[in-house]
């Protein structure tokens, strides 16, 4: 038995962190829209299962690359090498991230390095490597920040730092490129119904990754922007930032 991949897609989107959560939802949504895909995640078993599924359901052209972003020194080069016979690159989506429950100033140095590798080094390295091809295609880079980066707290310390650094990467990319040469989109995500929030009591409902994926796919290739998603988190972030310091210090959880 074999999966069929017979799409006539004109361009390829790279999705890093594609095997679960928002990444998997993005892969499904873009395959539904006929986009060729290069899926990157850490476990070849998950990638192969997803690639077969998308090829069967949507006749999508899908290639995969298993990559341990916590340990890979040059993930961008690996992705470039894996493009193979895929159509030209048009989009890079980076819904990749790792958060740890004990990211509260109690992490050993190795774990801090792992968090920074996945949340910060990998997006930077991959953007750097793929930038020439994306410029040539007048393509789109989609970065995913987090509501956690709105204001630094005693939890998610390293994770939030890395996510805030992505805001700087977003600004750098936009500053360095004319609007029509490269589209740069930054989504600051609120709570998503993924395994990271499974079972947690959240102050507001978690969004379905499939809904977020539809939103992102619809705006792919359009202008540059940074926005909260779901949009109500813009208000949440504004309130958190506006809180006087004495009140913010008392926030727990």
């Amino acid at each position, binding site marked *: *038995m074999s999966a069929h991949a017979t799409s006539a897609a004109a361009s390829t989107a790279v999705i890093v962190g594609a095997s*679960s*959560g928002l990444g*998997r939802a993005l892969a499904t949504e873009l395959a539904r829209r006929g986009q060729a895909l290069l899926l990157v995640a850490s476990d070849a078993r998950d990638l192969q299962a997803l690639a077969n599924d998308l090829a069967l359901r949507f006749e999508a052209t899908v290639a995969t690359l298993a990559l341990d972003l916590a340990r890979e020194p040059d993930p961008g080069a690996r992705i470039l090498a894996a493009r193979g016979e895929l159509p030209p690159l048009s989009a890079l989506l980076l819904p990749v991230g790792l958060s740890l429950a004990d990211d509260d100033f109690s992490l050993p140095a190795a774990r801090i390095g792992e968090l920074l590798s996945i949340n910060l080094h990998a997006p930077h390295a991959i953007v750097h490597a793929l930038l020439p091809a994306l410029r040539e295609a007048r393509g789109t880079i989609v970065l995913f920040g987090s509501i956690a980066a709105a204001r630094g707290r005693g939890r998610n310390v390293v994770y939030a730092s890395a996510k805030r650094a992505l805001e700087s990467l977003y600004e750098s990319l936009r500053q360095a490129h004319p609007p029509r040469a490269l589209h740069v989109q930054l989504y600051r995500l609120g709570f998503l119904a993924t395994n990271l929030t*499974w*079972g947690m009591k959240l102050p507001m409902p978690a969004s379905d990754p499939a809904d977020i994926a539809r939103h992102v796919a619809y705006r792919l290739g359009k202008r540059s922007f940074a926005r909260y998603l779901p949009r109500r988190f813009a208000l949440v972030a504004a309130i958190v930032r506006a809180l006087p310091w004495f009140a913010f210090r008392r926030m727990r959880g």
Partner: protein
Amino acid sequence: MPPADLRGFALAEARLTSFDRQFAADARIQRPDRYRLLDALPPQQRRIARGGGVSYVAASFGDDAVSVDMRAFDRLLAFDIHTGLVCVEAGARIGDVQRFLLPRGWYLPVAPGHPRATIGGCIAADVHGKNPARDGTFRALVEELQLHVPGRGLLSLDVRHERDLFDATCGGFGLTGTITRATLRLTRPPRAIALRRVPVDDLAQAARVLREAANARVLYGWHDGRPAHFGRGVVRIGLSDDDARPRKHDASAARDLPATIRPLPLPLWNRHGIALADAWLSRRWCKPGLDVIDLTEALFPLNDARLYFAGYGKAGLAELQWLLPHPRFEAFAAALTERVARDQPRIALISSKLFDGITQSFAFDGKGISLALHLPDPAQSSQRAFCEAVAELAIAHGGRPNPIKDSTLEATTMRRAFADFDAQRAALLRHDPERRFGSEMTRRLGL
């Protein structure tokens, strides 16, 4: 919130209720969405796989086990349009798989009534479809499966490799491991089903009609459960019709029966409600006739039964399902009719089916006629007493119960119904000597 050290293992707590509402528990649920998370639980952690959560009984939670929710493993892995084989992950819902296959000229001939049942659940429960006498049970479709066993990893099983474990897993109620994927043999679907209605006066006549129509694609009876009309009903015989144009039917996923149905605050199935419904159904169905329907409509009749299940209210229902050998069926039907006249139970629905398989393990198969009885409020004393009386009658006539349907079954009943109970139990548990798998159902049944 899950304990900090279990974050990332996707472990949480939730209140789970069996589909018949006879058992509820605060369960710990692990929801792996990647293969490596299958190994995240400590090897000795007691567990049980959970699919769509639509088993009538508590087959996927309870008994201090972590429920391993497999719904993220729902991908199609391979499909050969020429030979009719499909490989899917265990969490794929059978309704979704059929929706993929049918436009491509294939389908799974054995499918339970609920479209949200998963492939893994269908294998573990060895479910039957619309005519088990023709198509067998779900195990007949399984060419190969993959099983996750703590400490051993992912094992590939078929009739040539690890045959013993393969056999024990099909119909093994999840006690041998967590099914992760399966390769299934498909059948060419008819364009439409010509569904003929044959009215019957009683259960004995229904059995004769069922036996004469053994090769139909769809074959089952509906019967009135009221004492004055007990057994009267209709047998529906569905034959392939490749020339007819079926009536329009919305087969989209949006129409699938939900996994959880909110009960109506006031139950419908009191004596008056049952009388009204049965009278209406008798007038509508119990007359000769022919309908040409879409295959998906025939495969998932429960999609039209949302109000029916909600109507049981918070007290829920019990489905008693017994398979009676042919030589004893008429005597059983007569004794049951007599018992119903004496006890006057509330029975909301009776259905009959023909079986022509072999008896093995605790699977619901064999040669005979099955009867399924839906009883509202089974905890009520007179209803409960009737359930016990049915079990006594069925055992006295050589009947086999369906453990995956009947939450009133107890270990003592199982031991009496299965003469080789201890041997079958030992055969099942040989693959899990440390008892790392278990559910409320398997605890209740003494497995």
